[in-house]
């Protein structure tokens, strides 16, 4: 399943091998942990086991920062 995901102000188009993609799979794709990152779908923070749909507006937020 192909998903369009906004991450760090850039849009990423990712083709996932499975047709069932959960929020936690998206975090995993970006090598992020739910301990410091979360997924927003259509303006709402979703649980990690939420199934994502291709036409949804998906955004990933990673809270970790350095420097």
């Amino acid at each position: 399943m192909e998903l369009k995901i906004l991450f760090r102000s850039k849009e990423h188009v990712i083709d996932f091998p499975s047709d069932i993609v959960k929020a936690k799979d998206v975090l995993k794709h970006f090598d992020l942990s739910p301990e410091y990152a979360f997924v927003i779908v259509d303006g709402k923070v979703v649980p990690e086991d939420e199934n994502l749909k291709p036409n949804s507006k998906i955004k990933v937020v990673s809270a970790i920062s350095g420097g």
Partner: protein
Amino acid sequence: MNVLKRGSLCLICKTKGSKKEADIYLPAHRLPICKEHYIDWVVKRVEETIKEFRMIKKSDKVLVAVSGGKDSLALWDILVKLGYEADGFYINLGIDEYSEDSKELAIKFAKEINRTLHITFLKDELLPIPKLKERFNKPTCSVCGTVKRYYMNKKAKELGYNVLATGHNLDDEVAVLFKNVLTWDINYLSRQYPVLEEEDGFVRKVKPLCRLSEKEVALYSFFRGIEYIEYECPFAEGASTIETKKFISALEEKSPGIKLQFYNSFLKRAYPLIEDKNQKVMLKSCKICGEPSANDICSVCNMKIKIGDSIKG
């Protein structure tokens, strides 16, 4: 449970006799909570931290060090919500697009909350960060830190503020604490406290977000609709702090609450034993700018001299 289960109810709503679905789950606090109560929860937590460490009085004039990131904007938002006299101070570091974007977001937010944002351009004072990086053979984040601390303190005094508030969160504090514990650097550890009193030409410095995790602050900013700079400073990419944070985060995932416990226990048990072990350097006033300095000429004025020489030479 470590994650939000579908259909979980907000625990705060529940104690108030109503039923509402939780929007998020906070593993460290075992708390499923709705958006509205989460915002109140964060504000209250900051209020308690400010009171416990006697960080700010209502009569204080507070300058918030604003970077345009989630932490500093959330901090500013919370302080204003709590009724403090808090304005912002933004240093444009001259890091191309990153600085331009973050400056615009800081200006936009200041307008939204109707508070003053003071802006200083590093290129007018010294040199922009990319040029300083070229000129001085030191890690960029370290030069940037020195410069930011210098101008924050100097401008706070010049502008008539007596408290400088920074958006350091729990993860920032735990990462530094962890590194200092690895080397048992007692001198650094003895200064790692969320409030540093005004002394020797320094204004009081406070870190009111020290008990909120990075994710908790990001969630607050999201729920409050605060627009902040979401991408990393190009110089901080790959910074060792991020690796330390990821390492600690892996521990937190297995034992929720361990970060908070590590930090709180340090403040409660270890800090009282070492707080007077700080090898205090007798600070002088810089002969050029008058700012506190360990040497006759402070590090920023030293940079200025070297830059001047290289222009002449």
